[in-house]
């Protein structure tokens, strides 16, 4: 099963299995990874699953998948960078096995 590494603001990394087809936000929630809140559950209405894609992965993952994601990112609590994504909008594929995402200091 593909793996995702979540790195928190302090630099601590946690690697978890995320099945193909599941999204990176749920991968964190179902494994108790702190730092991704995902309060709306993937409905593109809250921007609390904000993450930064590791530089090595930005090309493969790509930018926001819709205008709505881009609009919501503008309202995210932490600094928005070119590598910012909402993790609920990143669906796992075999090609993303090994993905590394960094979590902001706060989601609120």
């Amino acid at each position, binding site marked *: 099963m593909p793996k995702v590494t979540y790195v928190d603001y302090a630099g601590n990394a946690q690697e978890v299995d995320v099945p193909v087809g599941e999204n990176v936000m749920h991968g964190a929630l*179902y494994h108790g990874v702190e730092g991704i809140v995902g309060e709306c*559950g993937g*409905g593109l209405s809250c921007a609390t699953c904000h993450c930064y894609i590791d530089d090595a992965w930005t090309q493969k993952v790509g930018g926001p998948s819709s205008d*709505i994601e881009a*609009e919501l990112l503008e309202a995210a609590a932490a600094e928005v960078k070119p590598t910012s994504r909402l993790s609920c909008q990143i669906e796992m594929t075999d090609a993303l096995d090994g993905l590394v995402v960094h979590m902001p200091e706060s989601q*609120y």
Partner: protein
Amino acid sequence: MPIDAANPVPPAFPRHVGMDQVPDHVPPELIRQSGLTVGPEFLAGPHDFMAALHEKQPPIYYDVSPMGNMWHMLKHEDALFGLRHPEIFSNEGATPFPRDPDDYFYFIPIEIDPPHHRKYRNIVDPVFSPKGVLKLEEQIRRRSNDLIDGFIDKGECEFTEEFGRPLPVSVFLDIMGLPQDMRDTFVSWAMQLLHSNDRAIMGQAMQSITVYLKEAIAEKKANPDDGVVSLIAHAAPDGVPLSDKEIFGFVCFLFIGGLDTVFATLNNIWLYLAQNPDKVQEIHERPQDIDKVVEELLRRWSVTFSGRVLDQDYEMRGVKMKKGDRVTFILPACNFDPEVFPNPLEVDFDRPRRTILAFTVGVHSCMGAHLARLEVKIALQEWLKRIPSFKLKPGTHIEYRPGGVIGPENFSLVW
């Protein structure tokens, strides 16, 4: 103090009701009798009333009401903060439905604060995720069309009874794995519990619900299926099966949360569209924007509130509140906060995306939100395909009744 969900005890803090029970720490200048959910001005037009609260009341005031005294919060910003800080604004004991003190249970997961809350959400979230609910799409379309078949040739219908009520209840029963022939019974229990404003009637309804659901759970334990009642009855997070109290509290809460809210939402939206043919036309012309349409209609026509209890003394906007005080975030009013949604009563499908509070925010965000969005979307699509324009039947009198879920009583449409 984290509670033990397997060994529930009734909350110890008091309920205050009426002017003679206003705690001493509440400044007299912040005491109001706003009439929210009960007064004649509210009942004449609840959403207009809630939008006007921003002009008539301070952002935080202490409301004295026959339904209980509590702080009301109106600002979008304050709701985001409060609802995202469960260590200050706790859910434990904040749900107003009466229960037998000798057979007490918690409503799960809404009355469970973090960190225990996530354990329960993980059981059901896959079913209610955006992807999970998409599996129901065809079935919801079919149920919508079956209902429309029943009245389209008449050229009119009583919307709430013939569409608004049966659609979400049928869908809910499908998901839960409960029989469709219970539909009307379920609806009447929910109406008594949520709309009667009479604690004796609420208690009786709760009793009927309890007996039925306990039998249903026992049946699913013996005969598992792929419905949500069975899923919960057989759940074992970290290898530990849920206790009977947890299973019951979970199933019972989904019953309460799932039956009445989409009903009221559909009623609000169809009443609005019947009176705003230009918006109906716009929806027809922009089929690709249906998700934006749904989101804006949910903002404009939110139906309920979020109640919390302060778990510590806390000050906001200079207002000093005390541990044990009850707080209600007036979610529809927050959705009308002019600082976030300019010209808030205007329905504008092109508003910039901002967090709406229709489904609240924080860890207790509505788990049924994606299902609700899908139901509203499909109902709009299927209805407008077959009944492209419609209006209120002449002479229809619109009435709202007091209650915690806001929508119009019966109304008839013609086409």
